[in-house]
């Protein structure tokens, strides 16, 4: 694998990505470039395929057609060990946290380090306290189980787990869904902080506009299985694209028609 970075080459490059589930076409030729060191926010309605796009890039769902390049490597053509190596450099924050119920918090946080035999269990428990501190949690939280935590604390633990292996690419799937506005802002702040500190590239998907503007440098909108707009996250509220404007301002009337049965 060639890991030489190129200034002209995007860190993540997606071309013509297609994916359907039975008769339902979810992604219909998605093109997306994410520059190294930037934070891209992908917005779109519920069921628009944002999570599917992220899972395709991660290799969790095989696409029907298209190309996905990370650091110039065609992810879909890599052998399983090469893909595992590439994936080891990616951290993922799942929508519902996806913490392992059967393991205490500290073991969740350093799971990747333990799995890769990079630390002993004793050392891992100590390191977990440091990672928990980075997301504003006391080291004593490490001894609890995920079911004993609130939604906001679970998200923070999941964030600590996502950054524990020091990934250079981070994916965030609806990071503020299900949280109150203040906790949402706290999580967004932590995300911005860890992305900046690690100096990595990030893709976040959300339909929370406040969150999108806080997290992202760049933004793209997924609608009808395609990316219909890309630009600066700061321009989201005045993009000039009627569909994006309808979505970001939450208007009923506009080019995006909800399928409602009356």
């Amino acid at each position, binding site marked *: 694998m060639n890991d030489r970075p190129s200034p002209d080459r995007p860190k993540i490059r997606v071309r013509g990505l297609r994916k359907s589930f039975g008769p339902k076409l979810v992604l219909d030729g998605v093109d997306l470039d994410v520059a190294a060191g930037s934070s891209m926010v992908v917005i779109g309605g519920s069921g628009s395929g944002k999570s599917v796009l992220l899972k395709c890039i*991660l290799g969790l769902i095989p696409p029907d057609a298209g190309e996905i390049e990370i650091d110039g490597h065609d992810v879909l053509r890599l052998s399983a060990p090469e893909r595992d190596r590439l*994936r080891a450099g990616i951290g993922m924050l*799942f929508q519902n946290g996806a913490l392992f*119920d*059967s393991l205490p918090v500290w073991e969740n946080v350093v799971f990747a380090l333990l799995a890769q035999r990079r630390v002993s269990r004793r050392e891992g428990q100590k390191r977990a306290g440091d990672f928990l501190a980075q997301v504003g949690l006391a080291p004593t939280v490490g001894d609890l189980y995920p079911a004993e935590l609130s939604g906001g604390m679970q998200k923070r633990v999941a964030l600590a787990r996502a950054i524990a292996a020091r990934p250079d690419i981070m994916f965030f799937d609806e990071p503020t869904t299900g949280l109150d506005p203040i906790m949402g802002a706290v999580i967004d702040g932590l995300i911005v902080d860890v992305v900046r500190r690690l100096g990595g590239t990030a893709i976040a998907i959300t339909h929370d506009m406040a969150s999108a503007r806080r997290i992202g440098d760049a933004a793209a909108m997924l609608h009808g299985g395609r990316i219909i707009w890309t630009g600066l996250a700061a321009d989201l509220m005045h993009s000039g694209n009627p569909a994006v404007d309808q979505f970001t301002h939450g208007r009923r009337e506009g080019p995006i028609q909800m399928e409602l049965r009356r």
Partner: protein
Amino acid sequence: MLALLGRGVIGAVRGAGQLTLFALDGLSHLVRPPFYWRMFARALLEIGYFSLPVVALTAIFTGMVLALQSYLGFARFSAQSATANVVVLSITRELGPVLAGLMVAGRIGAAMAAEIGTMRVTDQIDALTTLSTNPMKYLVAPRLLAGVIALPALVIIADILGVMGGFIVSVLKLDFGPATYLANTIHFMQTMDVVSGLVKAAVFGFLIALMGCFQGYHSRGGAQGVGSATTAAVVGASILILAFDYGLTELFFAR
């Protein structure tokens, strides 16, 4: 009608193929490092230790009933003295492994399917993949090995307790002499009776873990999907146990 039948046959063949590939994939991870010993120990404890009370009670009552029924049946042609022989033969060859297998299928097959199914629908299995951990290696392989080892251990205990159940009823209720009963049991029992039962138990343990993992791993659609996976794991494992029991009996004893 023909199309319906065809769809059913194709579905069954496809299901069998998927299950076989899943089993081979899971087994292949037993010989490819790393092996998750902690997960193996946890599964072994869950299957072997926590199933002990239910298997023990099943074995004792089965032995007791078997002694009583055999005695009453054989009394019709004055062959009551064969009670000890029938009890030990039935328990070691058939009832020990089959009843322990069915009880463990209900307890462990369901628990495995529910746990792995919940992990599937809450993205925990995807999370494993993103954390450089192969889910088949972490979740499936240790459980398969634990099933193969734990069930024979349970069946050894079930054999002893089953014979003990028969002994208790025979001595306390049916007026057998304790020494005579034990002597009959020991003299009549052959190594092959016990070994065949243990081999059956190992196969049943594998099938229980396989069905629990397979159904959980492929569960879809939230709580209802996990519920369906749990039911399918128990029903599937039970049927496979009975089918393989016949096949293995043919293999060991048919002349």
